[in-house]
């Protein structure tokens, strides 16, 4: 957010006359109406039907390209959890998981019931905090 952004925002907020368009631009409206009509009425308008087909094909291609978008969040948080920043929390969490699973598997275990929720919280907090700005750069 540079000074130019700030100034342009300032200018746009100060100007008392602003154009807000609730209506779609005329050209788009025509095409969309045409599309609906061609769906409803099969009679005539072969050209527009042809156009629609072309668009659909393009969309399908796009779908194939972006068939499985991968969420960057788990990867970023994994990296953060392993970074030097959170290594202490990770260490504690792993140690707790090891201890608790060992206690659960041991039938003679008579100690207090324990869980790793708190350790998980600390690790998660550290990792998400570290990943937040990176995630926001990756998202739109």
């Amino acid at each position, binding site marked *: *957010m540079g000074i130019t*952004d*700030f100034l342009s*925002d*300032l200018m746009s*907020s*100060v100007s008392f006359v602003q154009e*807000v*368009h*609730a*209506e*779609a631009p005329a050209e788009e*409206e025509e095409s*969309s109406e045409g599309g609906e009509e061609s769906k409803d009425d099969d009679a005539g308008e072969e050209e527009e039907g042809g156009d629609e087909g072309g668009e659909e094909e393009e969309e399908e291609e*796009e*779908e194939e390209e*972006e*068939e*499985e*978008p*991968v*969420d*960057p*969040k788990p990867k970023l948080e994994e990296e953060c959890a392993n970074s030097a920043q959170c290594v202490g929390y990770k260490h504690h*969490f792993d140690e*707790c*998981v090891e201890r*608790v*699973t060992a206690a*659960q598997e041991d039938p003679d275990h008579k100690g207090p*019931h*324990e*869980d*790793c*929720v*708190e*350790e*998980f*919280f600390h690790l*998660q*907090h550290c990792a*998400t*905090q570290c990943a*937040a*700005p990176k*995630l*926001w750069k*990756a*998202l*739109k």
Partner: protein
Amino acid sequence: MLATSAVRGTPLRAAARNIVRKTTTRAASSSSSEAASSPFYLTAGASAATVATIGSIAWYYHVYGRDVFAMTPAEEGLHPTQYPWEHAKWTKTFDHAALRRGFQVYREVCAACHSLTRIPYRALVGTMMTVDEAKALAEENEYDTEPNDEGEIEKRPGKLSDYIPAPYKNDEAARAANNGALPPDLSLMVKARHGGCNYIFSLLTGYPEEPPAGATVQSGLNFNPYFPGTGIAMARVLYDGLVEYEDGTPATTSQMAKDVVEFLNWTAEPEMDDRKKMGIKVLIIGTALLALSGWVKRYKWSPLKNRKIVYNPPVGRRSPPRP
């Protein structure tokens, strides 16, 4: 100014020197043996009072102690992470493309269980939809008409002035359909929850693969660290590629969560854009008036500030000699 100070200078300084001399002499004259010989019972009394004060405070803390926190961290829930929301900045508006995407996510995912009863279709016009799109959307649903001549209430297609319909008839129906848990209305959810946007984003994306070791999750509930108590009835709903954005944005889990949270922030604060604009106007007019008042004050006070007071002592008489 310079003249007045020069005129005033000498006598003032002389007077000051005089005062200083007097005080020093007086301090010298008062004997130090007097201060040292303050009675013992005064010192002892002050010390005892001090000790009693400190002791009573210490005793209070010993008896009542510090605050006792009955809530475990799990019951409290994990505090959401601060995300750098663009629309939360002082001079930024909502990203209306994101609002449109977020509304799509709401319609296709959230609307199955959550109502949005405070948002009419007309509010969508101009913020994320055109008039025709909003009308077409409204007409997909049926609403009650006014009673006709025979008192019958019929159904009519929705209009722009209608509100977005709820998925269930009432809260009881919603509870019955959701295993006893009521999906809350989302209209004001960003304002209603501690942490706002961060909380909802964290909640939507924070479902771990499996709960941490040793954590107990009741049947019918899911583990989510951000939900107070960590057991939430809502399962994870957002998965990569669940919706297909019309603008081609890759619909990852985080992207959908971000968009829908921004949309929910809009539903809670539809006036935000205007409010920020109004804030800038208030600042501009306020500073202008402040500056104006400063200059007017200067103008009005200038005769007073610029006057010169001169004392000319009468010539020929001398003041009596000082002792």
